[in-house]
């Protein structure tokens, strides 16, 4: 059955012992072994670069026009590491513990501890690559706080941390391309895994410029293809982000774990209308200084600046005095939804709350006046100085807000609302990041492994880079050491021919529907079902309805879809159609998983299971397991449970009060 392969021994020794005892591949053999990496975000680029450096022959694929465009680039706030540079009590154990607790006790202790252990190495590696992290005047690295923690362990580069980390990994990758260790395939999309004798031995890809299908062999295949948030249509993901690579693997037998764990990020710019194509996140780092509130009075139509202090409800500070505005994302999102559902929402749609910087501007202004020796500074001077400090910290985020909304957040509070942002679920992997298919690995957001039911801020970048730089270079050797006698398999092998034909048939089938409705219109409708019935709050009746509606929509999709253009040409509508078709199947599994999990935990909130105060109610006695789903046929899945054991971090109800 499911073997997570967690090494024996005390928690803090597991990874060290593993590294000391895993099998190694000698350099001469590495040159003969081929590895495929799908995706070039933080996980994929770091893995491809590191494996290239080790001497493996790597082939790397991305659907974008350059590996530098992968969506990791849009991560804003930061990356966690337990360096304890701030002397505020941080340690590997605390980062481990915060992550387990933040994930609502639904992740594996062994994986999370390893993540915390290598977190410091990531920062060192990135600095060595020339990642320009924020620094203090003394020249040392700067830190800030993020949600769900009481220490300052987040490293950052203004509001562009993901960009800088990805450029670092991208440059390392391009260096390996130049050295001939990695061959890069831009504008190529993976459309199937090729299996030979039960092992992953290659992939089928489509050249998105010519539409031509290609067969590629490797001794091992790594999927680093990101999350599936776009199943909701509106999310903070990039337009092209998709589940296709992971889903194709699922259809070839890889288990999909915890699909219902989706993260709704509390601070995003609200929806303006039906034309909306995506949502934009405002970094969680803003909650360091911004205060979230709604009017005390329902339907208060006054401008926010006209509502006096005593008529405002700073509901996070009220409900969670210990963490205040820095509660974890799931808690903050639900609290915003609760206020809006009760009729306290703001803005024309009433689906928004305020994120206000006036207090911070005043506080920083006073500090600056003090520093500059301005005595009895007047209010205008204080505000002016305070705005300068806020601009230095968050300038690019404020600019982005203004570009999108046309409002100046230095003058009026931002309006924000939760939006789909990250998916904790993904392909099931063991401690070595291998799926249940031998030779098929999954890294980064695409796997399920480290964040449980809720991811803490600044942990996604950490996990992507941990997997790529510091985990897979060891664990893949343990598999490939047994593959040194496997000769390259020619791609005219029947398994390749058959896989390519199946892909080709499906594309033809899509093109030949010749119906009346566009891909976009179907995707929007799917998103609405998912957001309304499987979004921030879920219940059994709604989920059952959703499953029915998804099936009906899917049937309509395959009957009435309209794709213009040709197969053998650059055809973005066709690319999108394939991805939406996969989302249609995944959506059903998400709902099935959400229905199976009769408890609330992290990002999965079932209305039937809450405490009298409206907090998530976990049911550890029955649901302390990873739900790994095996596809058994159309609309048919079998559940495999991996029981979670907590030897060190004993589960308790999460409290941020």
């Amino acid at each position, binding site marked *: 059955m499911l073997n997570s392969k967690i090494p024996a021994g005390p928690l803090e020794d597991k990874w060290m012992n593993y590294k000391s005892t895993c099998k190694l591949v000698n350099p001469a053999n590495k040159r003969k072994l081929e590895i495929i990496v799908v995706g070039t975000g933080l996980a994929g680029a770091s893995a491809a670069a590191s494996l290239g450096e080790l001497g493996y022959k790597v082939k790397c694929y991305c659907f974008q026009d350059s*590996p530098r465009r992968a969506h990791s680039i849009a991560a804003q706030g930061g990356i966690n590491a337990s360096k304890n540079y701030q002397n505020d009590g941080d340690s590997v154990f605390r980062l481990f513990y915060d992550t387990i607790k933040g994930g609502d006790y639904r992740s594996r202790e062994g994986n999370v501890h390893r993540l915390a252990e290598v977190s410091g190495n990531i920062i060192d590696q990135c600095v060595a690559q020339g990642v320009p992290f924020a620094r203090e005047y003394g020249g*040392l690295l700067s830190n800030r706080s993020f949600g769900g923690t009481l220490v300052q362990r987040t490293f950052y580069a203004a509001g562009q941390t993901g960009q800088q980390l990805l450029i670092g990994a991208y440059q390392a990758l391009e260096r390996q391309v130049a050295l001939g260790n990695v061959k890069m395939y831009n504008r190529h999309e993976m459309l199937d895994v090729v299996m030979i004798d039960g092992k992953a031995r290659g992939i089928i890809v489509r050249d998105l410029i010519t539409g031509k299908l290609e067969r590629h062999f490797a001794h091992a295949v790594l999927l680093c293809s990101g999350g599936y948030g776009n199943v909701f249509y509106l999310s903070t993901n990039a337009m092209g982000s998709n589940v296709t690579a992971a889903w194709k693997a699922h259809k070839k037998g890889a288990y999909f774990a915890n699909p219902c764990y989706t993260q709704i990020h509390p601070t995003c710019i609200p929806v303006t209308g039906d034309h909306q194509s995506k949502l934009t996140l405002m970094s969680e780092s803003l909650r360091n200084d911004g205060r979230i509130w709604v009017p005390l009075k329902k339907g208060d139509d006054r401008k926010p600046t006209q509502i006096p202090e005593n008529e405002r409800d700073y509901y996070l500070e009220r409900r969670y005095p210990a963490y205040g505005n820095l509660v974890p994302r799931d808690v903050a999102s639900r609290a915003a939804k609760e206020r809006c559902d009760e009729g306290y929402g703001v803005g024309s749609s009433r689906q928004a709350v305020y994120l206000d910087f006036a207090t911070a501007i005043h506080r920083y202004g006073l500090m600056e006046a003090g520093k500059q020796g301005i005595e009895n500074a007047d209010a205008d001077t204080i505000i002016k100085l305070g705005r300068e400090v806020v601009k230095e910290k968050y300038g690019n985020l404020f600019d982005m807000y203004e570009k999108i909304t046309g409002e100046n957040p230095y003058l009026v509070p931002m309006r924000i609302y939760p939006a789909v942002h990250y998916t904790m679920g993904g392909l099931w992997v063991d401690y070595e990041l291998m799926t249940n298919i031998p030779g098929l690995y999954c890294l980064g957001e695409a796997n399920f492994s480290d964040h449980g039911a809720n991811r803490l801020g600044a942990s996604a970048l950490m996990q992507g880079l941990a997997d790529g730089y510091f985990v897979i270079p060891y664990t893949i050797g343990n598999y490939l050491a047994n593959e040194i006698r496997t000769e390259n398999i020619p791609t005219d092998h029947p398994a390749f021919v058959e896989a390519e034909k199946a892909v080709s048939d499906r594309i033809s089938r899509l093109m030949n529907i010749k119906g009346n409705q566009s891909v976009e219109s179907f995707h929007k409708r799917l998103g609405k079902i998912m957001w309304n019935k499987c979004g921030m709050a879920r219940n059994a009746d709604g989920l059952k309805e959703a499953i029915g509606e998804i099936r009906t929509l899917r049937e309509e999709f395959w009957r009435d879809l309209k794709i213009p253009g040709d197969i053998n040409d*650059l055809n973005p509508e066709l690319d999108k159609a394939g991805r939406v078709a996969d989302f249609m199947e995944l959506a059903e599994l998400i709902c099935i998983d959400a229905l199976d999990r009769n408890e609330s935990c992290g990002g999965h909130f079932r209305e039937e299971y809450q405490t009298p105060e409206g907090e998530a109610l976990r049911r550890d006695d029955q649901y302390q397991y990873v739900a790994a789903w095996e596809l058994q046929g159309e609309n048919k899945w079998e559940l495999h449970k991996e029981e979670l054991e907590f030897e060190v971090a004993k589960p308790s109800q999460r409290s941020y009060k």
Partner: protein
Amino acid sequence: MEHYKMNLTLKVWRQKNHQDKGQFVTYQVAGISSEMSFLEMFDVLNENLIEEGKEPIAFDHDCREGICGTCSMYINGRPHGPWQGTTTCQLHMRAFKDGDTIVVEPWRANAFPVVKDLIVDRSAFDRIIQAGGFISVNTGNAVDGNTLPIEKSRADESFAAAACIGCGACVAACKNSSAMLFVSAKVSHLALLPQGEPEKHSRVLNMITHMDKEGFGACSNTGACEAVCPKEISLDNIARLNMEYLGSSLTMDK
């Protein structure tokens, strides 16, 4: 903020593939909201075209947050359109008014061949990075991140150069199709950091040599690149590159 609706005339470059000559095609779009982004307006137009049984306009886009550098439209004679320091995807329709005519073209440069409609091939940028836009440090070699303090102002300057998103607007704006702003941003980012020091001479020489090889033109310092850069990368980087290049040419045995 007052919101309004508008009707627009769009003149969009259509080109089947690299071999095709291409031409402008005129489209009308109605009821566009001032709250839409420029690309959402294109979504509306494309949905209309699909409905009419025509092929939608191919354009590059992905994050729609102004950071991935994928979007690349030349709008009314200016890369990324009228707003300062803004990518196409972050341009919003309140920049236009009812009755406006908007002309949209792809980036035009020999080193960026048109793939289809508004999509061009910018892989030359990747190859310039391959020529030296990195620090040669294998995974696992790093010392503690705080071993080497870096003066804050220097780190900030390096960061400002590293903010380049590789969109290619600088090339599209330049009358010589030079990639100097792009190359100089990378050279500056790395040369300003002590970690980039050991390779600084070979890096600048190799990157410039490769830039020329890809068919980008020479820099004549008119500053059109800086004016349109969505990340407002400074022309000072080109000055720094020239200095680094001169210094390296004198000291390197090549």
